[in-house]
């Protein structure tokens, strides 16, 4: 009985959530653009986000109520977070579509592709009149993409 060791790269579907390994979350400050998600790409993998990949984001205030007024911005950054380049911007109102099968077609889709590799960062910021309390249960993030992993 021989055992085959798989060696090489695998391309697999990827969904970034608030609990993905490498994600650090933080509360936002009212009326100030604040980082709520800082995703550091783990070693041995790279992630590609392509045109048409979907983003679902719901943020909540300290009373666990959804914040609908505000702007989400997404940035890519180097490993030392010296340079920050904006890759997406959308009002919060369009980001909560896709919860039910009926509104899947209304999901926010990325307008441009970008990629990050090991140790680099993907940042999501929120600017809203109400501060985000990231510990609330209502908060949710689902960003689809493609992971390329070394095995």
């Amino acid at each position, binding site marked *: 009985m021989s055992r085959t*060791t798989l*060696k*090489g*790269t695998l*391309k697999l579907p990827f969904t970034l959530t608030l609990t993905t390994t490498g994600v650090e979350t933080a509360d936002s400050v009212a009326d100030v653009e604040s980082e709520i998600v800082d995703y550091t790409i783990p*070693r*041995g*993998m*790279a*992630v*590609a*986000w*392509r*045109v*048409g990949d979907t983003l679902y984001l719901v943020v909540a205030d300290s009373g666990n109520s959804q914040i609908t007024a505000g702007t989400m911005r997404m940035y*890519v950054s180097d490993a030392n977070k010296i340079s920050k*380049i904006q*890759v997406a911007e959308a009002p919060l109102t369009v980001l909560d579509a896709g919860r039910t099968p009926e509104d899947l077609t209304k999901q926010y889709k990325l307008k*441009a*592709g*970008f*990629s*990050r*590799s*090991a140790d680099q960062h993907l940042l999501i910021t929120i600017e809203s009149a109400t501060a985000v309390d990231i510990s609330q249960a209502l908060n949710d993030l689902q960003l689809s993409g*493609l992971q*390329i*992993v*070394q095995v």
Partner: protein
Amino acid sequence: MENMAKNETKEWMNLAIMGIGAGAKGTIVGIVKNFLPGLEIGDDIAGIVAGGLLYKFGARAHPLLRKLGAGVLISSIGGLAEGFIGGIGGFFKGGESSNTGSNPNPNPNTNSLAAMAEAEARRTIKTGVMIA
């Protein structure tokens, strides 16, 4: 005459044991990495170190371990050389990287992962380019 035959058998046996060592490289590297979980080195380098140590000091425990270590060492050096040789193949094919050279299932480095991710991201861009 009988001695010559015996020596030849011994030689073949040694080769066979080295072959077993080469086959056991993955297992030995796995054991080494299991003991040193923070080790940020490739399997081939870990194999060279483990194989080298077995080759040098293994005979103190059992004579066969030295031969087994030699097998691990040879296999690891082969693994390292594989990338270079693949790269040469790719060069002659017209600038392909080692990932698509003579080795169809390589162990890519971080840079090639990044390049693959960028290619995936770029592939879907229809209008405008925004690659960071």
